């Protein structure tokens, strides 16, 4: 994983794991690797990984069973909320960039539909 220069590494790990929970790469209830293995997989410092996992835990996306490790939350609502939040952030960023290019809502809608249709077709092939 490559890291941005100006954002704390632990927050970038949080985002990465969040994405993987949202997109189903980690399923609800799935056991996560140990801190050390997880850190080695992502080639990051174990204390940084620990901090990232603590953050995810405070957001309710993962939970700890005292003796058996960390698991992805089983709470579908929390995962959905996080997913919606993520979708809003992506949309906001996109809309801001399009506004900077002086596109109207109607024009943006047309482009989005166009792009969506094209992507769906490509997926079918």
């Amino acid at each position, binding site marked *: 994983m490559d*890291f941005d220069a100006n954002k704390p*590494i632990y927050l970038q790990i949080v985002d990465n794991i969040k994405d993987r929970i949202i997109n189903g790469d980690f399923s609800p209830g799935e056991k996560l690797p140990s801190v050390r293995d997880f850190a080695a997989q992502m080639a990051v410092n174990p204390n940084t990984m620990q901090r990232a996992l603590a953050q995810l835990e405070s957001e309710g996306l993962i939970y700890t069973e005292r003796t058996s490790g960390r698991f992805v939350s089983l709470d579908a609502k929390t995962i959905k909320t996080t997913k919606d939040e993520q979708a809003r952030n992506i949309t906001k960023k996109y809309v801001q960039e399009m506004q900077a290019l002086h596109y109207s809502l109607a024009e943006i809608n047309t482009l989005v539909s166009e792009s969506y249709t094209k992507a769906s077709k490509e997926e079918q092939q």
Partner: protein
Amino acid sequence: MTPILECNGLSKNYGSKTALKNINLIIQPGQIIGLLGPNGSGKTTLIKLINGLLQPSAGSILVNGMKPGLETKKIVSYLSDKNYLSDWMKVEDILQMFEDFYPDFNRQKANEMLKDLDIDEKQKFKTLSKGTKEKVQLILVMAREAKLYVLDEPIAGVDPAARDYILRTILRNYNPEATVIISTHLIADVEQIFDAVVFINKGEINLFETVDDVRIKHGKSVDQLFREVFKC
């Protein structure tokens, strides 16, 4: 908790040349520390003082509360920036030597790492490529169950794929109470494995901060900050 490394007013001169000037540094156990500085900044001098290969000109240095010597060598695993292994030996002979020499040497761990990196134990050290020699040396050092690992430029001569493996090896093989000090100038490749970094320049410490603090305070990666601080 006893710091794993404590330097108080530590100075080292070579004749009239000052290599380290009044270094004050306390490192607590359980961390991976990057020791960063340009060529000739004093990194290797500090590392040699930690290992008892040099004596301080002034001030003191303590490793796990002890002066560097026989007792600290039992708990410090040191990767030198130079090869000191005998060329005529086979890799397996060197493993045997380390096993005889260090009670904390874990032969099984060493064998696993050699296998992962596809290094044949029957080969003579002499016949290995420069990069493979470096890998063997790092394996020897990381296969010890030490309290402090001091790695002087561990990744300088290996290809990027092996570099990744080596970083993972370091992350997997030190125990959480142990401390790893890594000197390097290939900062961009390794900064995400550090807890904190020490910038050393002209024998003095100019910065000792956690990697995330560097990002929060300066809005830069350690690599970018380093390039700025040490701009030529």
